[in-house]
């Protein structure tokens, strides 16, 4: 009879290898005319979700593209502000997704993405046990799931607020520069007009045009 410890350890390894889930949530800066790609090795049959949002920069849009190991494009969108895409991995291999800011000449963007692969790793290694959960435990599990969605909504809200705040700060600086600039332009133009007009009439001085005398 094999030692229960080793059998159990093997099961654990197997579970971890196959059901290896996880969530990568990254916010990075994408310079202008740049493209950044991320890769992940996914096993077949895993359900994955890619969600991205542009937080600051320009028109708050970015190009996104998701490819499977064969190079087949699973998802491609141009100039999107926010999107969420769910797919099931049809084969094993390295999946690649890229964000591109190549259409922008001088604004660099901050992009947030959340790539969820499979399910979150279970709390206990013995989660794959056969016995059913008690009522308390299942209540805890449902509270945990509900709190996870609360945290998810909070994250979305935080991103939208960051985007709104970035727009407000842009507006503030633009109003400041514009008002100063326009005041200067107004003064320069009105003074310039007067002197230009005067210069027209001072040229004709020698030709003695006396109007209305």
């Amino acid at each position, binding site marked *: 009879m094999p030692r229960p410890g080793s059998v159990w350890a093997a099961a654990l390894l197997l579970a971890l290898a196959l059901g290896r889930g996880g969530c990568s949530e990254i916010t990075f800066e994408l310079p202008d005319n740049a493209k950044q790609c991320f890769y992940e090795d996914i096993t077949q049959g895993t359900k994955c979700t890619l969600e991205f949002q542009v937080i600051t920069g320009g028109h708050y849009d970015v190009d996104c593209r998701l490819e499977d190991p064969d190079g087949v494009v699973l998802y491609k969108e141009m100039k999107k502000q926010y999107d969420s895409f769910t797919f099931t991995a049809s084969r094993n291999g390295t999946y690649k997704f890229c964000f591109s800011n190549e259409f922008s000449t001088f604004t660099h963007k901050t992009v947030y993405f959340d790539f969820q692969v499979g399910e979150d790793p279970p709390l206990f290694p013995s989660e794959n046990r056969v016995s059913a959960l008690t009522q308390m435990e299942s209540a805890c599990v449902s509270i945990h799931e509900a709190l996870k969605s609360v945290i998810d909504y909070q994250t979305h809200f*935080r991103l939208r607020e960051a985007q709104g705040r970035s727009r407000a700060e842009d507006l503030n600086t633009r109003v400041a520069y514009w008002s100063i600039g326009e005041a200067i332009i*107004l003064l320069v133009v009105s003074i310039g007009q007067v002197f230009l007009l005067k210069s027209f009439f001072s040229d004709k001085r020698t030709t003695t045009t006396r109007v209305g005398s």
Partner: protein
Amino acid sequence: MAGVWARQLRVAMWHRALLLLLCLALSSVQGLYFHIGETEKRCFIEEIPDETMVIGNYRTQLWDKQTETFLPSTPGLGMHVEVKDPDGKVVLSRQYGSEGRFTFTSHTPGDHQICLHSNSTRMTIFAGGKLRVHLDIQVGEHTNNYPEIAAKDKLTELQLRARQLLDQVEQIQKEQNYQRYREERFRMTSESTNQRVLWWSIAQTVILILTGIWQMRHLKSFFEAKKLVPSQSRAGLGPRSSKRRPFHWRWRGRTCWHGPAPGQGRPRLMPFPCCSICFIGKRQDR
């Protein structure tokens, strides 16, 4: 006796689980990876509330030109990790090996910037190669390693679940607190914009009116000086006396003159057409 044996087995299983998990966690940072050039610096931003722990695990692999694959591990390869807080102050700036783990706790809420760049001492191995970096950043309650906590504090399953829920709720609370602080900043920015727009519109209206008045007066005096327009405002005020009102009107025959009081400069003689105006002026002006 069976109970004792079962308990011993459970303890042994826990220890083995812990060891395995620790080994797995430390040895392989699978998950997301990206490519980075030699001198390239990649920065990531984490917007977090205060007193939040952030753990980052990374693993680097070097591209081998001969075999056209990434080597599993290369000693001598180093990554420099720099973390800046929202005020720009450097929180962490350290050099790690080809595989490492960095941790920091935020003390001010806001955008923390985590920058990674390779700092290899042996530049020859790079020579136009690229580096593959596996990265995994965990924030807040994701940093807790529950099996470890269970083993350390000897918690039952239910207690561990309760602990996890407590941590999650605490994280939510911190985030809500941070949200209030962010909303205040947003409100201040909006109010400042509002003020600026208000002052600017008032200022611009004033500037417009003043420049308009100045333009007209300047041009008028210019044209009058050039004698391009007859200098008249009401019935023949001379350019010099246009600023001064006449003391009295005079009417004599068909000519009229007007101007300053007698003895204060010669009155000017104006031709016939202005007499009627003079007359009217007299009527109105007395």
